[in-house]
């Protein structure tokens, strides 16, 4: 009956796995592992507080938090998208963070009820091939719908969270009709070729397959770090006086409503919005630190040197379903 022993053994071994210790801080994280691990490690070294990272897609984690309710083991939630943070807040999954502590972060980059706070920001920008002809007229993201750019633009499909967040900003900054027309024109210009990843867009622009692409700023610098001579440049769109400005989005953190370790959870947040934490958290991905006075990496256009859309980050969550409906109506793949 050695077979039976084997089966019983494997069952017992599996049931013995898992188990989070009571004194460990559990973070549901939707941010890329490699960007967040170094910061967390530093936090543990400084404070001795152990952290368990449970990585998955932000939306999947929100679903998990929602279904788990008061049985959740999560103490904190980190997401790469303000929209997700705000939706979690609306679902009542978080609790307010100490006002005095996060007051140092600009109001626009956190929830008005302090249920979450932004940690790093990214800009939606255009990447342009420096050798491309006849692209000088492009000054705004809305120009991507210009028929002159037929088959020359690179955009992600509408399943991409950053794309959706960007569209929300444009919708709130202008009007639904304008954005609907814009999407329709862009759909025609992109043809059948939609990109699954931002890195592929930058690659396609660098190789000259496409002339211009819509991306988060750091993908450009990531490509340039590997290929310093790539013929690409950043173009900050919508900078004229009447334009809406560049769309931003933030990654941020919230405290679970049902945490039993609020003090330690706030210690982690305090670390993340400290100067050291900010440099690490944002610097790992060439993003903008949200703490005023901490500069982004040198290659990135300095915050404050260009117009940013005046849309509060929490609106990315409030209006996301409207954006999704709009994308569906246009039939954006």
């Amino acid at each position, binding site marked *: 009956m050695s077979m039976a022993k084997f*089966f019983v053994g*494997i*069952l017992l*071994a*599996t*049931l013995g*796995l*898992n*188990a*989070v210790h009571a004194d460990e801080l*559990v973070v549901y994280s939707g941010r*890329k*592992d*490699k960007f967040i691990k170094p910061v967390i490690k530093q936090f543990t070294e400084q404070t001795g507080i152990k952290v*368990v*990272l*449970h*990585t*998955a*897609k932000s*939306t*999947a984690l*929100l*679903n*998990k938090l*929602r*279904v*788990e*309710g008061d*049985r959740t*083991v*999560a103490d904190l939630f980190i997401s790469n998208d303000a929209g997700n943070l705000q*939706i979690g807040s609306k*679902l009542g999954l978080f609790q307010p963070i100490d006002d005095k502590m996060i007051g140092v972060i600009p109001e626009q980059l956190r929830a008005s009820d302090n249920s979450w706070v932004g940690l790093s920001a990214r800009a939606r920008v255009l990447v342009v091939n420096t050798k491309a002809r006849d692209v000088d007229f492009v000054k705004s993201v809305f120009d991507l719908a210009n028929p002159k750019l037929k088959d020359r633009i690179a955009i992600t*499909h509408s*399943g991409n969270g950053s794309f959706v967040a960007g569209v929300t900003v444009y919708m709130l900054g202008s009007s639904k009709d304008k954005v609907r027309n814009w999407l329709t024109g862009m759909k025609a210009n992109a043809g*059948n*070729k*939609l990109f*699954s*990843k931002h*890195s*592929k867009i930058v*690659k396609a622009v660098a*190789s000259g*397959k496409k002339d211009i692409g819509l991306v988060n700023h750091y993908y450009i610098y990531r490509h340039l770090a590997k290929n310093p001579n790539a013929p690409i440049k950043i173009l900050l769109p919508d900078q004229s006086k009447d334009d809406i400005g560049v769309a931003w989005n933030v990654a941020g953190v919230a405290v679970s409503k049902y945490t039993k370790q609020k003090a330690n959870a706030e210690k982690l947040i305090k670390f993340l919005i400290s100067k050291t934490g900010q440099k690490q958290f944002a610097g790992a991905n060439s993003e903008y630190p949200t703490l005023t006075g901490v500069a982004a990496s040198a290659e990135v256009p300095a915050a404050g040197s260009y117009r940013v859309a005046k849309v509060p980050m929490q609106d990315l969550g409030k209006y996301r*379903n409207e954006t*999704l409906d709009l994308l*569906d109506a246009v039939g954006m*793949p």
Partner: protein
Amino acid sequence: MRRRVGVLGLISGLIVLIAAVPLMFVLYSSAQLSFDGWQALWSKRLPDLMWNTLSLAVMVAIGCFILGVSSAWLIVRRNFVGRGLAIWLMVLPLTIPTYVFAHIYTTLLEEDGWLGQAWLSVFGDMVAIPDLYNVGGVTFILSIAGFSYVFLLVRSALGLSNLSLEEAARIQGASALSVFWHVNLPMLRPAIAASMALVVLHVLSDFGAVSMLRYQTFTLSIYLQMDSRFDYQGAAGLSMVLVVLSMSFLILERFSRRKQRYYSSGTQQRHVKIHRASKFEQMLIWLWLGTITLFAFALPVFWMVSWSIEAWLQDYIDATFWGYVSNSILVAGAAATLAMVCAFPVAFFHTRKRSLLSNTYIQLSSIGFVLPGPVIALGVLSFILFVLSPLYGGMAALLMALVVRFLPLAVQSQEASLQQLTPSIEQAGRILGAGPLENLRRVVLPMISGGMISAWVLVFIDALKELPATLILRPTGFDTLPIRIWIEASEETLELAAPAALMLVLGTLPALWLMMRSEARNK
């Protein structure tokens, strides 16, 4: 006798009840969907989804049919150098999950990928490199990932088919092709139907490849409905439609098989003669089988190996990585064991007491096949949270979901071997004084051990690769190989996923070997 069946029926009823938990969840949630909600789904989403899903299923079925039947026929009917190896090569693609295929091929087809480079050197810029983000691409991925099921089933059926019929047809003047068309193919119908059903069900429930390639099938759409819109009711509504679709397909398939009985009159049976292939034929055979192997196994594995070496050189393979490996193997092993044990009463009850009740049990136990993984996970999660909440946080939820998902595989293979066990043997045991339990232990179980092992192996292979339910239900901080592949791939650092993918392949190999060996022994 009566009492025992009563107990058996009770136990299998209980198991079926657990397997039906996700279905109840779907029924409950979709009952809350308002009339307007249904109408919106019906008019906006369903027509496209229906078309996308069904056309994909048909195309993948055709793809798998061509690859699976041709390779099975060549290998059973022709003798050529390396035939034993060829059998293995046709089964090995089962070790690679669909999402890994999808990731690897999108990478290979990029401009600086191996296939992209090869394409450019042949066609230059004249013809664009093919893109996988469409129905053709998904068909390609799912066909190379799924044809092995067709190969396995058709191969065993071909090995059993009867030469006399073929010769009779040849004597009547039928050409070889016409014999294949009019004699072999009809004889193979049950095997082909069963394997096609398997392929189509895999297509309907596939999450990995379609989500990677963004092809909107029911499963992906259900997932997106829950995931980005937090609309469980809409998701449940879509799931209901999918369940009805798959269930009617399953019942249709079972029904069409019911009337078919192909067997020959015992003693006259002669085994098929295997033609020795000429040199030229051997070359053609290997050209065909080699091409299949190249795309369905060699290329992906070569990619995994080369990036794994890179990862190893850069010290990415550390203790944490081996932790993922052991996590995966333990979870898959435990799920396979539980599924094997749970499947037995259901299969046994059905073979012994064939009735409307047992039939219903069988249908209900196949829920795991027709519901998408994310929905099963959510159903199980809600069940555990509200009914068995002390168990939450550990392995219980994940194991339960895996068992529910793969129970049908275990039931089917046990049912098949139980059918070969004549009741008289069992009755003899009872007459000789064995009690029901002793009889079970000493007569029934040893005789169906082959079916038990293949049940275990089938569940193990699929559980090892499982992604959507594991994503949702794994305990906090608990990562398995598929989870790591998924994380690395979504971080656009796919290369780092190579060692994990390779370990999945290696981890499946012993299980596959076990299955092939027991199959060879049964012959």
